[in-house]
Structures are given as C-alpha cells and as structure tokens.
C-alpha cells in the first residue's frame, strides 16, 4: 500500500504521506503535528494512531521511539455526552 492510501489517524483521515510531509516540513513533536493536522484530535483521542505516529516520527527524524513524547493526555478518558455530564452531582 502506498503512503497516500495508508491511514494513520482514522478519526481525522490523516495519511502516512501527510505525516511524513509534516515531519519533513519541520515538525519536531507529535504536539505540533496534532495542532497543524488534527492528528489524535478525534473521538478516539489518539488511542489508535499515536503509537504508530510515534514510531513514524522516530524513524523519520532518525531518533528512537523512546525519545518521542506523546501529546498531553486530556480528560475525559472516554467521550461523554454533555447531557450526562450536566446531570452529575453539584457538590465539588
């Protein structure tokens, strides 16, 4: 399969080609790729794509997987309906 047809982030339809292009254009971290191309910003919040993206960034930037940091993990842990969140208790 070619890079243009290999989807890395399936929530946001980001291909391997797009990822490589972003790294070649100077992105040094996954945070930067996230902000410019929406990598890991969809409903799965990076559960599917980030481990792959991490390896790709390490390979492309001649680094090691262990040296690539993940974007900040933000709440909620799973998507929750606003209606459900509104029902929750009022006490802090």
């Amino acid at each position, binding site marked *: 399969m070619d890079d243009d047809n290999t989807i890395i982030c399936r929530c946001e339809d980001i291909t391997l080609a797009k990822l490589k292009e972003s790294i070649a254009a100077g992105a040094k971290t996954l945070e*930067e790729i996230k902000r*410019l191309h929406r990598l890991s910003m969809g409903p799965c919040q990076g559960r599917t794509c980030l481990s792959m993206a991490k390896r790709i960034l390490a390979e492309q930037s001649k680094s090691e997987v262990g040296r690539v940091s993940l974007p900040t993990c933000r709440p909620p842990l799973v998507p929750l309906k606003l209606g459900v969140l*509104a029902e929750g208790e009022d006490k802090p």
Partner: protein
Amino acid sequence: MIKKEVIIIGGGITGCSIAYHLAKMGLSNVAVLEKQYLTSGATGRCGAGFRHQWGTESNCLMAKYAIAKLMNLKEEVDFPRDLEIKLGGYLIVAFSPEMETQLKKNIALQNRLDIGTRWVTPDEIKGIAPLLSRDGLYGGAFYERDGHANPFLVTEAYARAAQRMGVEIFTYTEVHDIKIEGGTKTLLTNRGEFASPVVIDAAGAESARMAQMVGVSLPIYPYRHQILVTEPVEPALGPMVLSFENHLYCQQTPHGSFIMGLGDPNEPVSFNISSSRQFLHEMAQKATKLLPALGQVHVVRQWAGLYDMSPDSQPILDHLPGMEGFYVAAGFSGHGFMIAPLTGELVAQEILGTPSTLPMEMFRLERFAKENIVMETSVV
C-alpha cells in the same frame, strides 16, 4: 552568540504577526524565540473566534482593522491551506433588561465606528440560531461579519511568510535571563545567547516575568480559562453564542465540533493550566440549558489556557518606561488572537518609526496612572 536587529520573545500569534509585519516593511533580520512550539501558549488554547462587538472604542477599532486584514491573509501571504474562516456571526444574548441596555449601548458605539451590529428580537433569533433556547431571552446583539478562524493555521501562515522573507524562528528556546549593556540586550537561553538592540516581549501570560528580568513590573497577570471540544457533528449552529451573564461562549467550528468555554469570576491569579471536573459539569449544565440539543453530543477533550490580563482588559503596546528598545505587546486579556493581524502592523510601525494605522495613546502604560480607567466589560 546570534545577533539580530530585533528579537521577539514568544511564538504565538502576536509574535509571529509582528515578525511578519517587520519583514514585510523591510526589516527581516529578526528572530522569534519560542520556549516550546508555535501556538503552544494562549494562541493554541483559545476559543478560535473573532468579533467586532466590543464595549470600548479602542477594542472596536482594533477588531475592525484586524478582521479586515484577516479576511485577506490567505491571499496576502499565499498560504496553501484554508484558514477555516467561518462568518457565522456572533450572537450576544441578553437575559435581563440591564444586559439589553448594555448591549444596546455597545451597538450604538459600534455603529458609530461603522460596525454593522444590530439588535435582534427573540423571534429573529429563532431564525439565526434555531438551537438556542428562548426561555427568558430578551434578545441579542448580532453581527454577521464576526466568526471563526483556525489559530494554528493563522499563526502558521504568518510564521511561514516571515521565514520566507528571512526571519528566523527558534522553537524550544527558552529565555532564562536578559542583560542590558549600553544599547544592547543579551538574552540568555537554553540554546545559547542572542543579542539585539530591540527586544519585543510578546510572551503572553509570561510577559510580566520577561519584563521583570530587566527590573520592570508590568501590570499583567495570568488568569486560567477552561474550555472543551465535542465530537464533530452536522452543521447546526451558525453563530458563536456569547452570554456575558453566564460567562459562556459556544460555537460550532467548520470542522463540525463545538468549542465552548466558561469564565470563572472566582478563578485565582495563577499559572495553573490544569483541567477540572467542576468545569466539565458546570459547562455541561449551562450549555445544555442554553442549547438543549447539545445534550446528545459527546465531549472528547477539555483543556485550559491563560489569559494575559491587563487592568482594563485592553492590550499594552508600549516601550517599557525609561528603556528604549524594550517593547511590550501583551495584556490581550483573552482577545489577542483576533486582533493579532493589526497588533503586528502597529508594533512594526512603532519599531520602524513609520506613521501608525491607529492612535497609539490608548495602548500606552500611562493610561493606568489616570484616575478613571476605561474598562472593557464585554468579556467572558
């Protein structure tokens, strides 16, 4: 040691817009120092809206010129991507006669400055924002030229254009200290020393800390704002809905997700940018009361950022007192992104000594010494 004619501290929208405008006006021997990556501070955490609807003349004028420039930005800098500009308008709602009076006063000011905001009745609002609950609603202020733009891409557009003209951007470069000797400012960073006769402090919530390095106290303080985003859904909400009474804003982006945030009047001054569970609950309650259909939409992420607050919620564009060549562009108080296209132009004009697009007195530090400070109250 890297020597430049101008060094800008801060790689947010303000720093990148200043760098671009300096280069465009002929001064490209410029460096931007950013401690993380571009937009990593307030720019990349903001609500992504722009509006003309302000309560003070200086904010209205800034917004008017800035938004006109934003509309032409893609073509001006030949940016290959869409800046995700959506002109859905801002609908500022009133749930009390007092708010109606305040909004109508703002509309009169805006109309005088050729900004076409109008008062809309609950019946008209039904057509503008059918999702909005009209329970207890008195009406609202609406201007269809307000809207949304993508802060990451607008910053990227300025940064890339500046780089093409010779500006150097140093990311992951944090300023630890600043020394002044004669006319030269030396910035000590984790990536070595930078020297320049002109330093521009565009460090947002950190701007007061930068000025403190040269012994000057700036009246700018950090103020956390929390925000969340939902999954993308079909287009359902045209305008940004803003309620000063609920300290709330909510808009649907071109991508389909809803972005919404709350201001907390009891928020303490601090550099804390963690997310709280209380915010999620309160935001959900207020948003679903105002826009009941949103109850079915999933929240995927919440985060926080820092407003760089000034005493009157309006920016400070000025030289530090008694310090030629140390300029501050900060204190944007939550609306730095939307006025940045003009901020960059004004600051570049000041550095180069060319005529200003707007009178600069209203942005000076001196205004805080006066007895009556003109406050911007139209803020969340």
